[in-house]
Every structure is written in C-alpha cells, then in structure tokens.
C-alpha cells in the first residue's frame, strides 16, 4: 500500500519533556485523519514533524514515500499547512498575501483566479483588497484556507484550522474538506472539536501524553460514542 503520510516509531524528546513516543501512523490518499487530544498531547508535534520544522529524536516521518528529514524541501511540494492561528503579512492585502504564498509554492495565478480562491474560502469581497492588519482572526483563517487550497497539495496538515471561525464558516470549511478528500487529498487534522472530527473525519486518533492511544473509523461511532470514548481516555 502506498501511504501518502506515514510515521514509523516517530519519537520526539525535549530536554524536560517527552512530546511524542513511538508514533506509528499510516494515512492513505483521500483519507481525513483527525487527531484528538488535550493541549500538549503531541498533536502539533506530529504535524511539525511531518512538516520538517522539528527533527525527530528517533524514528522517521514519510510524505509520499519520501523521508521528511532527508527531503525537507521536496516533501513540502506535497503539503499544505494551516496553523491554528494563521498569521499573515499585515501590510499586504488578503489578495497580495495569497499571491505571495502561491508564488512561493510555484503557482503564478491571475488576479481572477486568486479572487476565486478567496471567494471559495469565504472571505468577503470587500475585504480582499484591504490590508490584513485590519482583518479579524476568522478572516485571516479564511485566507490561510485559500492559501492551502491554492497549493493543490496531496496532503493538508491542519492544526486547529477552524479556530476562530464562526459556525457558518466552520461548516463551509467542513464541506470543503469533504470535497477535497473525495478528489484524493489526504488530511491530517489536529482538533479539539469532536463533532467536527466525526463530521469530516474518516478515522480519528486519540492522543494522550505523546502517545496515540486509540484509532477508530468514524463510521463505526456516532458523535456521542466518540465523545464518551474521548472523555474516558482523558479521565484515565
């Protein structure tokens, strides 16, 4: 099986903390894998290891079959990333930010195409030519989504992507993820939102103290069962 994302005994230690212990994970194209867990459980560490932003203490992360540590730039061609709090360049407009990040990824879009991406991400038309310094967190998040979508990556790495979005925008984002996954895009999403995970995820993984303690297909659980399972692990 060709996994688009794979972690083999992935471990990350800091001088005074074990952030991730021996993670084994495989994600296929078109799959939406949601990582649930409390703050400090290792969700963001996992995403940062796949992005190559931090080096593993041991084990290896693979993107499209390439080891991340050996191909730190090449693997990013296949990845798009949305952090919990999308920070953009405040002196540039939303449109200029999208043009900049797209050009860095190798895409030179025409203005109409850029506007289209921003529109589909839910950014109001009146905001696209305003400087990002005047944006709310939710508006920045939408530009971040547009940046990720415009990259046409095989994998989306999302770290609390709906943080700061209003319910309508969150719902639209869920629909977007579903659409992208049906087109073959794999998604690894760290989230606290159990119901969103159930809604868009194909599998959920529960992390606790740097360890992936359980993995379930979302189809096998309803939202209440998932919540109960999550709370059980957290209380233990």
């Amino acid at each position, binding site marked *: 099986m060709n996994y688009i994302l794979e972690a083999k005994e992935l471990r990350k230690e800091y001088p005074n903390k074990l952030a991730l212990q021996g993670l084994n994970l495989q994600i296929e194209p078109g799959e939406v894998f949601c990582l649930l867990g409390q703050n400090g459980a290792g969700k963001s560490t996992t995403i940062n290891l796949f*992005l190559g*932003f*931090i080096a593993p203490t041991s084990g290896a992360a693979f993107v499209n079959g390439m080891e991340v540590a050996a191909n*730190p*730039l090449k693997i*990013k*061609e296949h*990845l*798009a*990333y949305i*952090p919990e*709090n*999308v*920070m*953009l*360049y405040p*002196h*540039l407009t939303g449109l*200029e930010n999208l043009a*900049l*990040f797209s*050009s*860095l*990824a*190798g895409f030179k879009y025409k203005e109409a195409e850029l506007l289209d991406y921003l529109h589909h991400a839910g950014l109001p038309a009146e905001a696209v030519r305003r*400087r990002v310094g005047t944006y709310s967190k939710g508006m920045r998040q939408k530009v*971040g989504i547009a*940046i990720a979508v415009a*990259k046409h990556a095989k994998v989306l*790495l999302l770290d609390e992507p709906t943080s700061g979005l209003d319910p309508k925008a969150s719902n639209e984002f869920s629909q977007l993820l579903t659409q992208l996954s049906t087109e073959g895009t794999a998604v690894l999403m760290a989230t606290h939102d159990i119901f969103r995970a159930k809604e868009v995820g194909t599998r959920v993984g529960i992390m606790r103290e740097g360890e992936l303690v359980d993995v379930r297909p979302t189809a096998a659980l309803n939202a209440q069962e998932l919540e109960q399972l999550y709370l059980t692990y957290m209380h233990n």
Partner: protein
Amino acid sequence: MHSIAQKEFVSTLRDKRFLVLSVLVLALLLAATLVGRASYQTLQQERQLAQQTVNDQFRHQPARHPHRVAHYGSFAFRPRSGLSLLDSGVDSFTGTSVFLEAHQQNSVNFSQAQQSGSLIRFGEMTVAFVLQMLVPLLIIFLCFGAFTQERETGTLKLLLSQGVSLRQVAWGKILGYSRAVALVVAPALALAAALLFGTEEFTSGTDLVGRLGLFVLSYAVYFFLFIVGAVVVSAVQASSRAALVTLLGLWILGCIILPKATANLGATLYPAVTKAQMDADVHEEAQHGINGHDPQDQRSAALKAGLLKKYGVDSEEKLPVSVGGIVMSESEAYSAKVYQQHFADLNATYERQNRLSDWVGLLNPYQAIRPLSMGLAGSDFAHYVHFQQAAETYRYALVQRLNALQTSMGYGDKERKLDAHTWQQLPLFAYQAPPLGWALPRLLLPVAALLLWAVGLSWLGLRLISNSRLA
C-alpha cells in the same frame, strides 16, 4: 526569492515607522548635499579669488632684486576636489593655504577647524557622515525584526511550508531591504551627480565619473554588509528586542568606540613629533649647510674659493656669476633636502597611524569605508600630502629660478634690481589634483576589507541562518 524581496519592499514602504525614519534620513542627505555644495562653492570661490590676488600681486611687483622677490614670496591655495562636497574628509582639519618663500618650508595653515568653533570637532553633517553613521542605523531599525518578527508572529512557518528554504527567505529579505535602502539613498546621490555634472563650477570628466561610480559602489557594498549583518543577527537571536540591542551594540562598537580606540592606539604606538619640534629639528640641521645670509660663513668662503678656481680668476669682481646667487642656491638645496627628510619621516609616522586604522578595517567595515570614501572624494591625508608636496616642489623651483636670476646678475648684484617685467615671466602655482589611478593603489586595503566582509558575511551568515531555529 523575488516574491519575498517584493513583499519586504512593499511592506517596508507601507510601514509608517520606516517612512518617517527614511524621510528624515533622506532630508538629512539632501540637506547635507546642498550644504556641501554651498560650502564647496564658498570655499572654492574664496580660494580662487585669493590665489588670483596673490598671483597678481606677485607678478606686479616693481623692479626688485630677485632675492627680495624670493622673500616676498607667494601663497598656494589648495583647491577642493569636486567630490569633497560629499565627503570633506580631513579637509576641515588640514590647512588650506601655504606661504611659499625662500629658505623656509612653511606648514599648510588656516584650516576650517582653526577658524571655527570647537563644535566642528564633533564632526560635520556631510553626506559621508549620514551614509557612514545614520544609514546603518536606519538599516538596523529596518532589518532587526527580519526573522524574529516572522518567528514571533508565526508567519515564518507558513512561509517555509510553501517549500522555500531559510536561505532563500534570507536572500529575498536582503534583496527587498536593499531596494528600500536604495530608494532612500539614491535621490541624494542623484542630486549630487546632477550638481557635479550639471553645473559649470565642477570640473567634470572621466576621472570624476570614475570616482563617483566607485564611491557609490563602495557605499552599496557597505550597506549590503549592514543589511546582511542585521538579517543574520535577527535570525540567530531569540527575540526582536535582543536582535535590536545586539545590533545597536555592534553599531556603537564599530562606528564610535573602535575608531576612537584605534586612533588613540595609533598615536601611542607611533607618536608624531610636534610642529614646533619638527621646525626646531629642521632649523638645527639646516645649520650644518651653507648660510646664504652670513658673509662670515666658512662654507660660503670655501664655495667662493672653488668658484675662483673654476673660473681661473683671483677676485670675486672678475667672476661672471654672482657668488651670492650660487650660495643662496646651494643653501636652498641643502635646507630643502633637510626639510624633505624630516617631512618624509613625519608623513611616515602619520602613514603608520593611518595604516593601523586601515588594518582594523578588516575587523570593522566602518574603518574600511571611511578611508575609501575620503580617498575617492580626494579629501584624505594622501591627497593633502600630494598638495603639500606640489606646493613645496613649486616653491623650490621658484626660489631656485630666482637664485639663478641672481647668479646671472654677476658681481655687485645686490646693488641692482631686475625689471618689473621679469616677474611676469615666472610660472604661477597651478595645482593639478592626482587622478583616480594615483589614488586607487593607496585604497587597496580598505577595498579588500570591504570585499572580504561582503563575501565572508554572506557565506558564514547564510550558513548560520540555514542552521537557525524556526520557532
């Protein structure tokens, strides 16, 4: 890389803090250019007028004995170089004119510093001062957050997730900041170029074009160093505050402390004799030669005896030449030789002091751009010495020509005078400043220092950036 450069450039232009600072620096640059031009005009006109006046006075002397004319003397006024409007170098502290007379090698006197208040010793507001001291400060305030702010706000991760390397980001930033700095500096340099080449008061030519071109290029490298340095410091420091404090500390060390310390060290290691001491030494040593004004001088008597023998006559009256003229000529040759030796020793001491500072340029780019800037502007110590030597060469030739006239007058010359028309045949002092080709070999060390800094900092700095942390 170009996208990042464009982003930095646009962001910088839209940043009000940068706008305020850059408008201030640009205003200072433009003001310094205009003030430099006004100062150049005033001093140049004054010196031209003074030179013309003393030349007229010299040529319109009445019928006189040539040795009286030699003592009447003349003045040589140092013309300013065109580029001194950008960098006045040591011009304000060195003299502007020298009195040329027989038997005496006078100092170049009447510097601006002598005639101004003590405030001039704190430095003048020249274009070079703004370029060397204030533009680096602007660069520091522009670049200190290059990486730290990206890390603090979290944009760096998003940027790198697009598939660019830290090295590409760094080069993009360096390019973007370079454009912003060029935008601030270029108008002032364009104004200077327009003044230099668009008005008649400056002697433009390929030499001036070459000097201005290298002047601009040197400062471009200097600013590049500060931009790269600031970006590197920003990449390796943990916070914007730490980066700013580090950069300001380096600026104080490089632009204020090290130059002063080097100057003091140079003066301690290579102490120069005072003017009074040198004059006394020259006077004392000149006593060993012929004294043209002392008829009892034994060496004069020996010379006279030699002349009688040479011409096969038994008395001075029968000589076809004036013994007094030949004695004066010999005396002048000896005292000039003594003076040149002492002058060369003193200059060698100053050269050693300056050389020490030039070598420190390998550690401190500010001490590399300073001599380079002054040298290209024609306002450094070497150009000053060139004038001093030209004035002494002219003085010596003039006095010896007058001695030759006296010699040709034969016996009893002291009772006679030469026609007023004679003085109009004598050449006037016309100073030709040395060309760029003369100046460049003297500037190789500062040029090498700047280039080594540029290559070394780019290589080492970018390696540091590549290995710097992301979060």
